[in-house]
């Protein structure tokens, strides 16, 4: 039970950690000041939520573990985030496409997680939901502005939407830990909102005058710890300090 619960929480929290790290790379590199600040604010929200989840995991693990152990001291195969969030920033269209695909999912997920019979998870979700509704508004807005913008912004947004599309289906795959937690009334059954997810995505893409991709081949692996070639580089940067100076504290 405890192992499954920890794995289930990691499946949610690692998405926020890795996406937060990716967005953090843009600090000082956004296309303009307002967007730069918005992206790093979203990163901060995600890392804050990650801390709440990791503090809970550390408590479940006991043995003096802390949130830092969970964030920094695992090997690549032990991170359970989806492939979508580890994809590189490339150009701004890619940043927005990744954010948009994730935000729609994230919102629908934690909206349901509020009703978890695990009190701590429900509280973290309730808190996070208010923040995520701002993220979703931001990314949907940019999909529309770029899609329905100039011919060049339209073409670049379409390119990013097509390219990141193959990572969306993995959001709805269930691991053994997910299944166990759904049965226990702790976890959310993601298949319940798969349809609403693609409806919402389609609605925004239509408004943005973009074409909904019809690619049927999807990538997967992250939820089982098998990551894309980008993950090693993310972790090298993320873990550098703790690996070089073990147990370093601020």
């Amino acid at each position, binding site marked *: 039970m405890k192992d499954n619960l920890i794995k289930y929480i990691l499946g949610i929290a690692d998405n926020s950690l890795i996406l937060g790290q990716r967005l953090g790379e843009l600090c000082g590199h956004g296309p303009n000041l307002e967007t730069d600040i918005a992206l790093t604010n979203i990163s901060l929200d995600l890392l804050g939520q990650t801390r*709440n989840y990791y503090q809970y995991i550390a408590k479940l693990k006991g043995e003096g573990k802390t949130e830092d152990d969970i964030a920094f001291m695992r090997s690549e195969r032990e991170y359970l985030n989806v492939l979508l969030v580890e994809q590189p920033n490339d150009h701004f269209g890619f940043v927005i496409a990744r954010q948009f695909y994730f935000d729609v999912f994230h919102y629908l997920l934690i909206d349901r997680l509020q009703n978890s019979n695990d009190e*701590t998870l429900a*509280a973290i979700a309730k808190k996070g939901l208010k923040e995520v509704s701002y993220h979703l508004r931001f990314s949907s807005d940019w999909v529309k502005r770029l899609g329905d913008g100039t011919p060049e912004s339209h073409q670049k947004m379409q390119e990013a939407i097509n390219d990141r599309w193959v990572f969306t289906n993995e959001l709805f795959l269930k691991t053994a830990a997910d299944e166990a937690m759904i049965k226990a009334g702790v976890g959310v059954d993601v298949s319940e909102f798969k349809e609403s997810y693609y409806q919402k995505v389609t609605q925004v893409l239509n408004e943005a005058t973009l074409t909904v991709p019809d690619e049927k081949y999807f990538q997967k692996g992250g939820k089982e710890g098998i990551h894309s070639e980008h993950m090693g580089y993310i972790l090298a940067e993320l873990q550098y300090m703790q690996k070089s100076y073990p147990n370093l504290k601020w």
Partner: protein
Amino acid sequence: MTYQKQYIEKELISVLETVSDPEIPVLTIIDMGVVREAKKVDEIIKVSITPTYSGCPAMDVIGDDIIKAFDNVGKKAIVDLVLSPAWTTDWITSKGRKALEDYGIAAPLSPSADKEVLLGEKRLVKCPNCSSTKTVVVSQFGSTACKALFKCEDCKEPFDYFKCL
């Protein structure tokens, strides 16, 4: 991690009022509504605070400042972070809202009005400098996670708006 109702023992308020948000120094933690419980148990002051945002970097500082404030009056305090019920801008007191406005930050509207405003449908946010409602959203995220960036079209001043949560 959860609690029922806000409960602050009267004699502790004066000390708690000396602590303010490091990012909005005009707002005390009492006016901000982040103190959810404060009581004396066996000579130790127990204080529960709730974060405004999950990633709010001010929380660690506020926790330390509370301990310091009680230490200054010769008391030992412990601070604990609670998440539920989640903080809402409705908990900012009317004194707090006034302090925000005087400081140049527009106070939060109701959640439904907030949505209309940030989506650019309605002009309801009053410029804290000239009180004009001819204001526009520049960005939904401002200098901190809890604020949006606005511009007044009359006096041309940019200003922060405290978002509804």
